[in-house]
């Protein structure tokens, strides 16, 4: 029998365990529809703010050894525009990523999506390169608690908290988010990083400091998924450097119920989702796993 690669992240059910990570390609319904047809199990939007944001001037994304460095600056068309754009959606499994500074920011945005078909929200508590949002919120447990509690009270769909490595203990952020009622955790965001060009002696990104993604951060992300799933009874989505089926399996063994993919698009483009899905399926067949959940976190028993 062919293995079943559908998976459940708490109450979120998806046909395939590979999601598009937030910040990547996510600004039009047509692109989401294409990536869904290419094999993505769910599409996480760019992080949306109350109003449109232009983001930082270029360079915003450059390659570094074993990964990519970005400080796009959360450019996005704003929640109202975006909600209207995807209002006709019937088939595509979309998770809306939201970014804000205070509970009220999130309340306003959630209202926009009340009548739009989405799977859930992912709260960006971890973007490492924009002031007063993202990681600056994630580093403040009291604020995380307030935001999650408020969103939970208003949202009709599940809430995922996306955490990253900031200046406080990320496990404390996870603990507070769990306590306040999140339904799942995505770990991790890009890691605060920078690159300096030796010829011109200048930082390359216009924002100077950005976030590191890609293969370079995968072992860090695997460790975080492992720690979170060991300490908390909470579904986890693994994110950080997934570029092959082996990477995806590694995250699942560490405790992830699904993975998100971003940087790997540069090398493998939109075929990356089906390639990884097929690899996962073949691995399950070889190892006699019939469901994804049979593999989730089994590395923890050693």
């Amino acid at each position, binding site marked *: 029998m062919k293995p079943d690669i559908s998976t459940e992240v708490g109450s979120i059910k998806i046909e395939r365990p590979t999601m598009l990570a937030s910040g*990547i390609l*996510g600004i039009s319904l047509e692109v989401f529809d294409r990536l869904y047809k290419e094999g993505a199990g769910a599409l996480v939007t760019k992080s949306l703010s109350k109003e449109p944001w*232009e*983001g930082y*001037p270029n*360079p915003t994304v*450059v390659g570094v050894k074993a990964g990519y460095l970005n400080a796009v600056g959360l*450019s996005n068309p704003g929640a109202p525009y975006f909600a209207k754009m995807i209002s006709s959606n019937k088939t595509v499994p979309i998770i809306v990523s939201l970014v804000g500074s205070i509970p009220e920011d999130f309340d306003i945005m959630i209202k926009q999506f009340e009548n739009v078909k989405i799977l859930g929200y992912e709260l960006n508590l971890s973007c490492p390169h924009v002031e007063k949002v993202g990681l600056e919120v994630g580093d403040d447990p009291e604020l995380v608690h307030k935001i999650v509690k408020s969103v939970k009270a208003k949202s009709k769909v599940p809430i995922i908290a996306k955490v990253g490595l900031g200046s406080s203990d990320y496990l404390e952020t996870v603990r507070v988010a769990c306590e306040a009622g999140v339904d799942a955790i995505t770990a991790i965001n890009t890691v605060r990083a920078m*690159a300096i060009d030796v010829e*011109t002696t200048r930082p390359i990104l216009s924002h100077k400091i950005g976030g590191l993604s890609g293969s370079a951060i995968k072992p860090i992300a695997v460790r975080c998924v492992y720690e979170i799933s060991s300490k908390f009874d909470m579904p986890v989505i693994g994110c950080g450097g997934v570029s092959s089926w082996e990477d995806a399996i590694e995250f699942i063994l560490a405790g992830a119920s699904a993975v998100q993919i971003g940087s790997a698009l540069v090398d493998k483009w939109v075929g990356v989702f089906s390639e990884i899905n097929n690899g996962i399926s073949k691995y399950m067949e070889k190892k006699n796993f019939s469901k994804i959940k049979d593999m989730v976190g089994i590395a923890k028993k050693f």
Partner: protein
Amino acid sequence: MGLQRNSDTPTIVKIEKVIDETPTVRTLVFSDEVLSNVSPGQFAMVWIPGINELPMSVMISQEKGKAAFTVRKHGLASTELYSLKVGEQIGVRGPYGNSFTIKQGKLLLVGGGTGLVPLIRLLTFLKKTDDVTLLVGSKTKNEVFFEKMANQILEHNKHQVIVVTEDGSYGKTGLVTEVMENLLSQIKFDAVYTCGPEKMMHKVVQLASSKNIYVEASIERMMKCGMGLCGSCCFGEVLACRDGTVFDGKYLLTNKEFGYTHRNKAGILENY
């Protein structure tokens, strides 16, 4: 496809020569083996340190191992690039994107402004047996450039380079698309290539398609990463940087954004 750089980190190059093409257009020449060999239509991300990074179609240089960018000053970043002097440094990454499909026979190229850059490179990839017509569109006489260069590249081909100015100060008078319409009624072309303002390209694609002629256009959108990550250049369900920048007319006419809308820095659709 030519050589590939093994990283997406900017490589620093020095401007070696600056050529004034018109009062507002300059070509900057530099040494870079990888960019000297790109396919016609491919682009590079060009870092002007401390200012910005811009997607630029790679211009030919007539010297081996050298490449160039031809830039018109209009915005802040392009004006800074335009103003660079010999000896100053820029960063380049790429090449990125696909390229024009090389066809043979009677070929028509329609360019407007700096949209001529990938078409000039395309000329260097054509066979000596091809019969080539290049239409150069411009507002006025002192904005015309690359006419002489195109004639030189095509000197061993059967060819014609036709300049069209909107004010009639040089060459034919009117719009390139009007001249194209005329040509199509006289000559049976095997393929049409275009790059320039999107409204112009839209008309070129419609005209060629109405005569069932294979046509390709290189489109431009707001670009940030150039590699297919950020999504800024999305154009319907495709990404200009990754699926393009060259698309064929059959596809373009199914894309609702072509000729009408593009996204701004925040990703909001705006009308052309």
